[in-house]
């Protein structure tokens, strides 16, 4: 019987996963917020194209995305050559490579809830802000973001949780290097392969509980936030 405590390797995987999810989420917000705002407001055809592109990871098998990323970022790929010539080196099988892959993979999970809540902010609110001397950035910061709080929360939880759970993309682009690219979901896979079911249970169970709690918390927060706006929508 293997002991029921986590091995160093498991802790490494957990820490790495948490770091990956946090960094990815940060980047997702930096990219996703302006992107979602643009998508929510644009009337151009380019918008539909970008929208479709962002959504691709939702329907694509993660291994396909991972494979193309591997090719693109690899020594023969255009991006790989660029990163090498810039002195960054090659991204596959490194932590930055994982971040790039996770960001692309989780982008729709952040952009879509943001876009939906931005689109729900009425044009009227923006006009009102403008007549009260608020410039576009001021309006976005003090009107749009506060009104989109439920969407921001959903995006954060979904983006974080989705990055935690990814497997295929990480396996393709990051491989399975303990301490460097071996994330939780891969660690679980390794345990199962080695018939170490108790360890697998421990890891899988914690992931399950964490994800569930995160979603539950989201529900509660959103309910608390949205009971007021629901009444407000009546005519405020």
């Amino acid at each position: 019987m293997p002991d029921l405590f986590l091995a160093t390797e498991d802790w490494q995987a957990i820490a790495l996963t948490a770091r990956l999810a946090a960094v990815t989420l940060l980047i997702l917000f930096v990219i996703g917020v302006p992107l979602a705002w643009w998508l929510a407001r644009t009337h151009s055809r380019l918008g539909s194209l970008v929208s479709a592109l962002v959504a691709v990871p939702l329907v694509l098998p993660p291994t396909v995305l991972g494979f193309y990323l591997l090719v693109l970022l690899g020594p023969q790929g255009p991006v790989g050559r660029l990163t090498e010539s810039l002195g960054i080196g090659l991204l596959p099988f490194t932590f930055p490579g994982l971040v790039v892959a996770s960001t692309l993979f989780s982008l729709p999970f952040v952009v879509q809830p943001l876009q939906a809540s931005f689109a729900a902010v009425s044009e009227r609110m923006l006009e009102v802000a403008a007549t009260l001397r608020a410039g576009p950035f001021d309006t976005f910061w003090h009107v749009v973001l506060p009104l989109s709080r439920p969407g921001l929360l959903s995006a954060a939880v979904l983006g974080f949780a989705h990055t935690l759970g990814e497997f295929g993309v990480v396996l393709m682009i990051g491989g399975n290097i303990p301490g460097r690219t071996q994330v939780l979901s891969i660690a679980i896979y390794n345990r199962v392969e080695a018939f170490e079911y108790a360890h697998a249970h421990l890891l899988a169970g914690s992931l399950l509980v964490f994800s569930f709690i995160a979603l539950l918390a989201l529900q509660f927060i959103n309910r608390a936030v949205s009971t007021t706006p629901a009444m407000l929508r009546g005519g405020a």
Partner: protein
Amino acid sequence: MSGVEARFRLERPGFSLDVALELPDKGVSVLFGPSGCGKTTVLRCAAGLTRSEHGLMRIGDDCWQDSETRRWLPTHRRPLGYVFQEASLFPHLSVRGNLAFASRRGGQGDRPDRKLMELLGIDRLLDRMPAALSGGERQRVAIARALSASPQLLLMDEPLAALDAERKREILPYLERLHRRLSIPVLYVTHALDEVAQLADHLVLMDQGRVRMAGPVGEVMASLDSPLAATDQASVVLDARVSGHDSAYGLTRLDVEGIDLWSARVGHEIGRRLRLRVHARDVSLALFRPEGSSITNILPAVIEAIGGDDDATQCLVRLRTGSGAQLLSRVTRRSRDLLALEPGMVIYAQIKAVVPVV
């Protein structure tokens, strides 16, 4: 230069707007017309919310827009206040937060303006959220918010249209009080003549994207050529003062430039100024002072002009009383011919109803 100059030309599929307005630098100018006539578009152009291809917007010495010099200030750089049809308060901010949003950006700091809040009766609502306000309260907060940014021009787009009759009656007195205190010009859009009668100093009649007539409210309303003259709404607006009450009969005596008129009792104290509306359909004419009539308000007047086509069933007669007040009277063409009405004739006007606009 004083006053407001606004010229906008705009082409949209199925709609064209071409207006040129010169408005006084004080008082309320009302844009009046049927829905779809472009009055809201004029307001949006003035605010910069809609961009007209050709346009000029000047207030005093400040130019906000001039397509000839390619000058264009975006809305947030125009010192204006805008009240929309629906109050459109920020739902995530309290009343205080909504007011502070405006006053901070208008350079007035966070403190809400006490006087303004008392004037609009919202000083007790400061800590409430918009959701906890009634429709009328919300609209009053929206007006206070628009004024908190210390605007140079107040634009109001049918601020009462979304409210029921009772809420309207609740807000109108506040608007009227504001009207008397404000030192900035107000451009007010409505399709309700009651609001015109109560608030307008200057009246602009619009139809199908064009200005049909503009001028001081008394003049425009009493004109025989205005689009209003042809409708059932033809009426005049008179400034009056409460001069007495007859509580036994429930009547109020009103002094209109030296003439006494009686109306159904109003609650105002003696001395209070108010406006009256007299519909042309409520004024009938007689050649001699009627005896034994049930109508109380009978006064001599001179016929100034008679309008209406020669084949119309009805025509509109404009009268001037001895003290200078103007009245309109709607009579049938047959009566016109039977009484041989002509400009210059002295005649007796019997006023069936005098409606104080409150």
